[in-house]
Each structure stands twice: as structure tokens, then as C-alpha cells.
């Protein structure tokens, strides 16, 4: 069955094919990319493929936000603190130079060793983290810096203090602020896109997802614990709710899949960064010429069209 998305891809492909490749490498690269995505759409993803994505998305050597920042940005300046209560190390935010232009970057950050992991709270942000993200977004908005967000979290932190400090409200307001930004916004899910804590940073003009990333309403374990009353059924749960990139693309949740090096992003951080950098650059270049109001209108319309109902 051809989905709308597949039809859109085919249409774009046909259009690109009719252009003599004067645009050079960039255009042919896009053609190749579309063809690859189309080919993958045609294949059926098996439950095993889905589970492999879950494992790769959580791989301990997978590159995290700062690994990409280090490789893609010059003159990086990191911001700290939400200007109210604390500095949440699960969220990284700052400014840097990407391809000669200043961009703002916000992303979740996991730790590499156990000490670092605890310091980063395993990538699970408190409301303070979302507030740090928001003040950075506001700054980008005022100075006309494109915003890049990198999503990698098992979910927002479920703790007593997090609730008392307004976790639900912070996530809601982070979504809302992203819907109001005048600047180009590109998000990429680079590992785990866990629930509202992830979508809070992904209300973007273009939402990308790395090949082996996952994006889901709940973790496979959480879903299994609730629906099957057994966290051990995680594999079954993942197969049922399909958090892999291909299914997200098919449902129109993301706009494109970013390729990873053979074997997964963890096998070659430099190559993973290069591929991600290309995709981000392409998306920003596409968005920059649009008028801010138009961009914002399309961004909201994009999300308002998501869902399947009768």
C-alpha cells in the first residue's frame, strides 16, 4: 500500500530526476538519499530490525550532543543555568559557528562513564533543563540565529522535585515557545526520543532522525510494564508501537532519515558527525529563504496535521 509519504517521496524523486544534475553533488546526493529511503520504505521492517534500533539508539558508545558540537561547530560557547534555580547538566545549550554562521544549539546530553552519567542524570532533564533550553531559544529568536536541537533522552525525569518545580508546565511551555520562534528550527533525534521530554525540543520546521534512533510515546520497558505487566516484554512492546525511524517517516512524524556509518553511529563518530552536519546544513539552507511568518505558519500547520482519525 502506498502511503501519502511514499507518494510525496516519489513525486519529489520524479521532479529531481527531470532536472539535469547542474546542481552537482548536492542534488545527486539528495537523489540518492531519496532513492535509498524509498527502497527502505518498500522493505518490511521486521521486529528484529526494530529491536536492533532500540539497542543501537542506546549504545554506550553512541555519539552524544557534545560529540557532535565538538565536530560540527567552531567557537562553541556553552550556557549554564536557567536563571532561576539551577544548571541542569542533562541539557546542553549554547552558541557556535556552523558553516560560518552563528547558530544556537540545544540538546540532551548523556554521560560516557558512570560518574559522568550520574552528573548528566542519564539524559533525563528536570524543568530547569527545559528552562535553560527556552532561554537559549529566546536568544536565538531575538538575534535571528537558526536553532538546532539534538534530541537524546529516555524521557523527562520523573522525580519529586521535578514535579514540584513544574515538569509538565515546563515541557508544555518549551513546545509553545518553539511554535513561536521566528528563526529556522531543525531538530534531529540522535538517540532516544523518549516521550514529552523529547518532543519538547522537537517542534521544528524540519524534524530529522538518525537511521538507528528511536522516537516514541513511552520507552519499550515502560509500555511493556503497563500493557503487559512485565517489563521483560519490551521487545514485544517495541514491535507493537514501532519507534524506529522508518515507521516515523512513514507516519509523517519526521521529514527525513539521516544516514549513519556502516554498523551504526558509534562505530565512527567523525563520519556520523559529517553525515549529520550535511543533513542539518541542507535543512537550514532550505528554510532560511522563507519569510519568518511563513515559516512559523508552516511549522504549526505541519504539526497540526499529524494524526490519523476518522
Amino acid at each position: 500500500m502506498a502511503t501519502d509519504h511514499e507518494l510525496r517521496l516519489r513525486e519529489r524523486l520524479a521532479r529531481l530526476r527531470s532536472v539535469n544534475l547542474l546542481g552537482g553533488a548536492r542534488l545527486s546526493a539528495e537523489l540518492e538519499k531519496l532513492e535509498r529511503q524509498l527502497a527502505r520504505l518498500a522493505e518490511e521492517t521486521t521486529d528484529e530490525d526494530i529491536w536492533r534500533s532500540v539497542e543501537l539508539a542506546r549504545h554506550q558508545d553512541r555519539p552524544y550532543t557534545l560529540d557532535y558540537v565538538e565536530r560540527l561547530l567552531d567557537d562553541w560557547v556553552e550556557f549554564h543555568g536557567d536563571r532561576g534555580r539551577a544548571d541542569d547538566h542533562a541539557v546542553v545549550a549554547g552558541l557556535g559557528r556552523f558553516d560560518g554562521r552563528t547558530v544556537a544549539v540545544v540538546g540532551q546530553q548523556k554521560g560516557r562513564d558512570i560518574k559522568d552519567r550520574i552528573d548528566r542524570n542519564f539524559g533525563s532533564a528536570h524543568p530547569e533543563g527545559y528552562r535553560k533550553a527556552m532561554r537559549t531559544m529566546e536568544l536565538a529568536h531575538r538575534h535571528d540565529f537558526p536553532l538546532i536541537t539534538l534530541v537524546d533522552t529516555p524521557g523527562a525525569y520523573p522525580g519529586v522535585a521535578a514535579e514540584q518545580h513544574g515538569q509538565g508546565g515546563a515541557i508544555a511551555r518549551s513546545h509553545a515557545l518553539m511554535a513561536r520562534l521566528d528563526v529556522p528550527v531543525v531538530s534531529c533525534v540522535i538517540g532516544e526520543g523518549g516521550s514529552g521530554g523529547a518532543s519538547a525540543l522537537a517542534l521544528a520546521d524540519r524534524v530529522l532522525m538518525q537511521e538507528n534512533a528511536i522516537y516514541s510515546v513511552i520507552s519499550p520497558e515502560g509500555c511493556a510494564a503497563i500493557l503487559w505487566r512485565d517489563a521483560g516484554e519490551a521487545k514485544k512492546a517495541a514491535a507493537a508501537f514501532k519507534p524506529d525511524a522508518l515507521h516515523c517517516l512513514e507516519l509523517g512524524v519526521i521529514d527525513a532519515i539521516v544516514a549513519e556509518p556502516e554498523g551504526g553511529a558509534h562505530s565512527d563518530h567523525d563520519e556520523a558527525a559529517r553525515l549529520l552536519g550535511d543533513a542539518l546544513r541542507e535543512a537550514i539552507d532550505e528554510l532560511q529563504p522563507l519569510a519568518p511568518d511563513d515559516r512559523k505558519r508552516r511549522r504549526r500547520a505541519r504539526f497540526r496535521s499529524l494524526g490519523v482519525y476518522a
Partner: protein
Amino acid sequence: MSSPRIDVSIEHRDAPGPPGKRHPNTCPKCDSHYRDDELDANLWVCPHCGHHFPMNARARIASLADPDSFAEEATEVRSEDPLHFFDLRPYAERLAEAELKTGLGEAMVIGHARVDSTACELAVMDFAFMGGSMGSAVGEKFSRACDTAAERRIPLVSVAASGGARMQEGILALMQLPKTVAAVEDLKDAGGSLISVLTHPTTGGVLASFASLGDVVIAEPNALMSFAGPRVVQQTTREKLPDDFGLSESNFRFGHLDAVLSRHELRPYLARLLRLFSSDGD
């Protein structure tokens, strides 16, 4: 002997949870027992101790709207099953069962109405429909309510009661967070306003989206409102939770609410607020 029935419903994880086999009309606080009509006559509030029983969407609308003023919209919107989701039972079967049980097509009812003569748009959730979980149909209905409110230049009043995003719709359920938020932003840009009422329980994806974005946010007493439910927080942190964890009173203390109002105070409060928002127009 038949084996005990296992409750597999995700929606009820944060529910008021009557311990044991308590009758729904027995007050969990003071054990008084009532007939339906007795509770209905008192807005489903225990006349003895003031406990707020769950209130279904129809009763809620009747309690807020002027008689015969409510005109329902988008009645035809229904959930689909894009993932062909099957846990222990097919999602389609759960949907059909919820519709039979509640008489509603989805977990949200929208329409325009008058509250003490002031026009407004209502978006009311019903916890009895799959735990008030938000899937594509709820997101779409809320989104349309925002548009109607903007077109008619009337405020939108939402009454939330939800366990969060509807897991059976997977990532599309999560996408209802940005969707409903984008709809609220469109409403606000059009000069409209959202008044958000949180009732027991309002958790997960609904709290983390439109329900927290009211220009004014109010809650019923003793209602649970938390992003993560108490059980999840307990299991993750292994901390002892405060007695008032996530309850309205605690949220009010921490500055997340404008008011905690008993159900009897809700209509007059909304009427006053709606008049203030509508003073130059209508």
C-alpha cells in the same frame, strides 16, 4: 474458582483507584454511599465530606453551560488504529468498548455554549473513555475547538481529565502534544484565550501540553496533576513521596495554579472570568 481478573488498562495507572471492590458511588474518603441521583444533584461531590467523585463529560457540561445552550461539534471524529495495535486485546476492541461504556465517540467532547450568558467554547475530557487518554482524535477535537474559539472570538474553556497520551497510537499519540500546543498558539495569536481547568487526574501528555498553557489555570481540590504518576516516581527514585505529591494543593503552593476551586465554585468563577475576557466584544 476463577482466577482474579488482572487489570491491564494503562489508563488507570494514576486513577483515583478505589481500593478493593469499592462501589463507585461509595465515598473513598468517608465511606458514605449514595444513589446516582443524589450525587448528580450535588455535582458528584460527597455531601458529607466534600470528596469530588469523577464527573463524566456530559454531567460536566450540564454543570457549566446554561440550559440548552450547548451545541456539540465534531461529533463524527473517531480514533483509528494506525498501528493495528495489539497488546492483550486489540485497540479497536478497546475503543468499541469505551464507546459502549461511555456513550461518547472519544475521550473529549467539544462545542460552544453559554456560561451564565457569556459565550465560550468548551473542550471537556472524560476519564471513563480509556482513561481520558489523548490520541489523534482527542488532539484533532481540541485543535478544532481552538479554531472555533478563534473564529467566533470567544474564549476556550478546557476541562482536562486524562492519564496522558494514548499508548496504543504510539508516536502519533506523542505528536498530539505539539499539535495541541500549536493550536493553542494559533488561538492566542488570533487574540483568543484559553482557560484551563484541571480535574482528577490530569497527568502525562495532557499536563505537558495544552492543559498547562491556559491564560488562567485552575484545578479541583485533591486532584492529581503530575507529569509522571506517583507509582513511576516511586519506582524510579525510591524516595518516599510526600503525602500531597502532585495534588492540586501542592501545585498551588508551588505556583503552578491560579486557584483551587471546589466544583460548586467553578461555574461562578468561570462566569466572572469569561465576562472579564469578553468585555470588549461579544
